[in-house]
């Protein structure tokens, strides 16, 4: 089995890699228009992912997209590559098996905040712990959109949802810190309005050898936005930058249990931990050598 080709680092990517990007080459055009609501940020996130794949020059036949359930799960359906629509919360588990069996594939997981942090929270922390070479794109729209707008682990304080009619009172996950603490080698976060930056973060995550976790701050305009008076689609997109205040992030310690609408963006972690697939194959070689020794 061939090892996958090394991808380009951010410095090696030229303007020509980034330009000449035609998104329709990467889409299943017969499924369009897609099912997502008007103004949904997942479409922008999908463009960023496909653009990063284009910039890295990844062959569509060598690309495997694994997605779970929810609005984010449906995003994978529209990509003209090897796509795998799995059970709720388990895309990382499926992807782990896929990557172990086929290390030559570029495995990208598209998952949502509920899919990844609630139903599949256990899979996330273990995938991060192993540091297997998977790129995990978590599209965080802060709500369960497809099932009608229930509260999710990332819904900010006092937001109205169908299950929190008087406002949300649950503390939230900071998914990037969770992934970092669990051991993910590469962690990044970006809002969809900064598309070129999001593309660069994803492209770097694709090239990273190890578990790269990228949180995309997306908008749910129809369910979250309408219920909470967050404005029209353009207002929500423009509001993304206002909601991110990096300077306040580090001061936000235990006494602030809710997401304070201040999270820093960019590449948050870039570590040098050993990759699980490599360690695993080394172990296999070691065991096989021991076996051969024993047979003699």
């Amino acid at each position: 089995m061939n090892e996958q080709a090394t991808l380009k680092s951010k410095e090696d990517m030229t303007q020509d890699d980034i330009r000449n990007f035609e998104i329709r080459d990467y889409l299943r055009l017969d499924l369009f228009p897609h099912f997502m609501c008007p103004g949904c940020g997942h479409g922008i996130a999908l463009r960023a992912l496909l653009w990063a794949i284009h910039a890295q020059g990844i062959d569509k036949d060598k690309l495997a997209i694994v997605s779970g359930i929810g609005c984010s799960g449906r995003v994978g359906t529209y990509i003209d590559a090897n796509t795998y629509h799995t059970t709720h919360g388990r895309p990382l588990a499926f992807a782990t098996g896929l990557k172990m069996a086929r290390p030559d594939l570029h495995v990208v997981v598209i998952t949502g905040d509920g899919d990844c942090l609630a139903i599949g929270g256990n899979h996330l922390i273990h995938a991060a712990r192993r540091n297997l070479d998977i790129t995990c794109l978590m599209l965080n729209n802060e709500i369960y959109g497809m099932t009608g707008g229930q509260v999710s682990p990332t819904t900010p304080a006092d937001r109205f949802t169908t299950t929190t009619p008087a406002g949300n009172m649950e503390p939230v996950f900071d998914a990037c810190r969770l992934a970092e603490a669990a051991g993910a080698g590469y962690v990044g976060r970006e809002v969809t309005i900064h598309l070129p930056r999001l593309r660069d973060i994803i492209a770097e995550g694709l090239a990273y050898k190890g578990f790269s976790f990228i949180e995309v701050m997306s908008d749910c305009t129809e369910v979250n936005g309408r219920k909470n008076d967050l404005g029209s689609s353009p207002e929500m997109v423009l509001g993304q930058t206002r909601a991110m205040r990096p300077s306040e992030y580090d001061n936000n310690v235990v006494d602030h249990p809710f997401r304070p609408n201040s999270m820093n963006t960019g590449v948050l972690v870039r570590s040098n931990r050993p990759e699980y697939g490599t360690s695993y194959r080394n172990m296999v070689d070691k065991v096989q050598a021991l076996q051969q020794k024993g047979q003699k």
Partner: protein
Amino acid sequence: MTKINKVMKATTQPAVRTAVEKLNPDTAKEPINVLIVGVGGQGVIMVSKVLAQICQNLGYQVKQSEVHGMAKRGGVVFSHVRFGQNVWSPTIPMGKADVLIALEWAEGLRWMNYLRPDTGIFIADTKRIVPPFACRSRILGADIGYSKNTPSDVREKVAEAFAIDATEMATKAGNERAANTLLLGALSTTLSFPDDEWKNVIGKMVPPKTIEVNLAVFDKGQVWINRSRKGEPVEGGAFVPLVQPEINSVRTELSITPEWCKGCDICVKMCPERCLVLNKDQVAELAEPEKCTGCHICEWLCPDFAISLKPIHQEAVA
């Protein structure tokens, strides 16, 4: 900027006028007016201070008035210097300046109506400082809104015109910032003051480390004017009009797939040029195609992939 400056390499000779009378405040009936213009940071005030100091040393009445406060670096700076037996007003009336010294090409053109139409002498550095608002058009490869006038255009409008590439010459002499002293040297050829007095005052005005360079370029300026008056070949010379820099001028064509558009309004509100609208079916439409600069923002932020921008070659447009 350097790329633009390199374009000017032509050998047009300035106007030839053999019989030159130097301006002498002793014999002149009216005060002699020298207008110095340029861009903030170039040394306009220094030039006018040197001139005013010399006049004062020689015992004439001098009045100098300047506008520089709002200019910062890069803004318009001008300085009026009037000297003679009796000077009443500190500002030069329009059409009464005997000499116009311009440290920047477009500034020189801007103030040309202050020159005496019959005898005014125009001395300008061909240095071009293109202000940001001249590059206002966001269309890739758009023309720059900077003067396209050449020295030969200027020569038809004034009695005597000199276009010196002073900045280039001063850079060769060792300090780009000495370009204003080079123009002082050029100015000194039009006035009746002794050379020693000029050099003396310059030596006192400039920073001690740069005295040598400044005196060297002062001589260069004098030589340049004297030689070009005689029609002899001179260093630098005039330039060709400003052309837009060599860039891959790319025009783009915006196309919208109406069936995919869900009317989320993001492209309409995010377009910096406001060239998109939602039509009566709540579908995005390019209302003003000529305004589109091809910035890609609508394409990038369209969640439905309904907008696509494709580059088209200039030949195809024409």
